[in-house]
């Protein structure tokens, strides 16, 4: 007998089978959702060692002997919160650093209120970051520290390193936008059409929920539909539900962005692309990327839809350092920090890279007379980790 073109019997039996499964799943899901769930985030113990206005400096309690001469300061973005680096013990960048003997500090930018609307990039970089760096240097009696920036925090770290190179031992940038003249990411396309002046004049600070909505509509099929279909399909799995809720807690915890900082970030970076051209001015000083002469490790995600590779990979070519390395991981914007696969590659690589540069002298800056020739001689590496 010839096989029918539409396997009605198979489709119906599969439907019946799935209906039974769904019923069992719903019963189990009800048990899971009604029991006590462990959905706490950012549980690694730390002390707040410094406070200024709304910002706090977290110092994580070491769990092993410190293996580095210079402590590491992590600077997160102003959008969302630094708790993403410590979502759960088994997927925690913070835990991994502590296990490697890193003396770890992290800035908590807090929740900007209306009174913070006039804070500029200059205030964040030359006031808050600089005071924090000075505090750590003084506390540890070291002239320099390791600096790691994430996303917009990475952009701040690049600016800081260019303006205060004498205080930075090494610079690690992760999913950090520095070249904004690209059409690879939707944010880059949309931000060119946004009237930042009007937005800031209207809202004062940029509302976090407003920005979050903008991120959701970057991919509504996945972020507004498929994600929750996936949740329904796995509601009976306690571990899955706990991890899902942790992620939801983090993703919708969105502080507002100080108005003047937002204005400058959109106009100078997204619309004029001044940073990568070393033309951006912060606090009356030009941010000259050639002054970044410390070792630089630059991570980015191949499938990052917010900060695509084209926005990240130009940095290592523009800085003055001879010791630079790009690492492109096959993941997205958040996957670098939370995916189990990346956990095995990301933190160990940074820990190892910093260790080999922890006590050495800073590599000499390129000669200014023949920049093109010097650039060709640089030990620039590019790795694509799979």
């Amino acid at each position, binding site marked *: 007998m010839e*096989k*029918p*073109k*539409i*396997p009605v019997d*198979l*489709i119906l*039996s*599969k*439907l019946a089978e*799935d209906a039974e499964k769904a019923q069992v799943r719903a019963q189990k899901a009800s048990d899971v959702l009604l029991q006590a769930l462990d959905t706490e985030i950012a549980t690694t113990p730390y002390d707040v060692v410094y406070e200024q206005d709304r910002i706090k400096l977290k110092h994580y309690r070491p769990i092993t002997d410190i293996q580095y001469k210079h402590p590491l300061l992590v600077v997160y973005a102003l959008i969302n919160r630094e708790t993403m680096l410590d979502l759960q013990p088994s997927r925690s960048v913070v835990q991994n650093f502590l296990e490697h003997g890193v003396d770890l500090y992290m800035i908590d930018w807090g929740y900007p209120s*209306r*009174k913070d*609307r*006039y*804070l500029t990039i200059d205030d964040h970089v030359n*006031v808050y970051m600089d005071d924090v760096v000075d505090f750590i240097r003084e506390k540890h009696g070291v002239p320099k520290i390791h600096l790691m920036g994430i996303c917009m925090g990475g952009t701040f770290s690049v600016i800081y390193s260019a303006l205060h190179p004498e205080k930075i031992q090494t610079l690690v940038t992760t999913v950090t936008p520095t070249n904004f003249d690209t*059409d690879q990411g*939707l944010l880059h*396309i*949309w931000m060119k*059409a*946004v*009237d930042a002046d*009007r*937005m800031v*004049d*209207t*809202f*004062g600070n940029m509302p976090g929920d407003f920005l979050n909505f903008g991120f959701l*509509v*970057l*991919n*509504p*099929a*996945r972020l507004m*539909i*498929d994600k929750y*279909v996936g949740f329904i399909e796995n509601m009976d799995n306690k571990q899955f539900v706990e991890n899902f809720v942790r992620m939801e807690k983090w993703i919708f915890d969105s502080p507002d962005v100080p108005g003047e900082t937002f204005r400058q970030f959109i106009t100078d970076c997204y619309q004029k692309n001044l940073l990568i051209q070393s033309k951006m001015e912060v606090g009356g000083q030009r941010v000259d990327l050639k002054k970044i002469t410390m070792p630089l490790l630059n991570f980015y995600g191949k499938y990052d839809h917010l900060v695509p590779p084209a926005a990240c990979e130009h940095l290592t070519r523009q800085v003055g350092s001879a010791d630079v390395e790009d690492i492109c991981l096959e993941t997205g914007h958040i996957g670098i920090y939370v995916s189990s696969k990346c956990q095995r590659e990301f933190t160990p690589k940074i820990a190892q890279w910093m260790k080999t540069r922890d006590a050495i002298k800073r590599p000499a800056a390129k000669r200014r007379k023949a920049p093109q020739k010097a650039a060709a001689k640089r030990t620039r590496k590019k790795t694509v980790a799979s």
Partner: protein
Amino acid sequence: MGLVMANDQNIFSDPSNLLSAWMKTASDFWGETLKVWTGPAKDREDSPASDSQTKSRAQESLETVLKTWQTLSKVAHDPGTSEAFSNFSHTMPDILQKIIQASWQGLFHVQQQWLEKTGKIEQSTQAYSFENIDKNTFKIWTDIYENNFKQFLHIPQLGLTRFYQEKINQATDNYNQFQAAFGEFMYLFCLPMEKSFKVLQDEVAKMAEEGTLKEDYNTYYRLWIKILEGHYMNLFKSAEYVQAMGRTLDTLQEYLKVRDAIIQDWLKAMAMPTQTDLDDLYKEMHQLKKRIRKLEKKS
């Protein structure tokens, strides 16, 4: 009785007579009423105060009104005026007809415009594509609003409350413009859904023809999500979407700005600090902190 009836018939047959009769009756009535009201005042004529002083202001006003009525009544009896009234009663239906005709034509014209334009919208919707979306589709609604309604909100306001009324009108106008832009934005935002279902149906039909239909419906869901994601990516990169998004944001912000200005007026009236007052204070604080930091570094 028969004479009265004849007189009455005569009165009703001629509108000018009717008017004169009505004015006479009114005049007589108010004259008698006034006499009753002013009576007590006349009784007090022996009082030392003059007549004008003893009359109340209300009585004076009534007397003036009555005199005017009496004058009008006399004039109405004048043959020339009666003729004019008589002519008016004949021409009135024509005038009314002209007024109604003009209003109806205006209304009909607007309705016709609406029908034509809504017809165009339907036409554009059927022939959509991301690459070639009819840019005028949603401008039509804006045009209707701007040509037929908006100007009423911009009639110059007068008097003491003119600034407040102007802000309320502006807020209404801005809100309408935001709604128009938001409608366009949502239309574009929903297009991929429509299109993805259509593509999915085509795919399923193709699979059915080839005999490759899958029994697991999850396969179709995955296929649909993939198609939908692809459509959204195409849409989001299109200039039309970026422009619609920009317009929505701009109009929303314009509306919020005026809305906040109205709220600030209320806060001022209640002697409460406004957002502008607080912002000024925050700005000053920020500048002072910067100056202190500079001074601290110098010392």
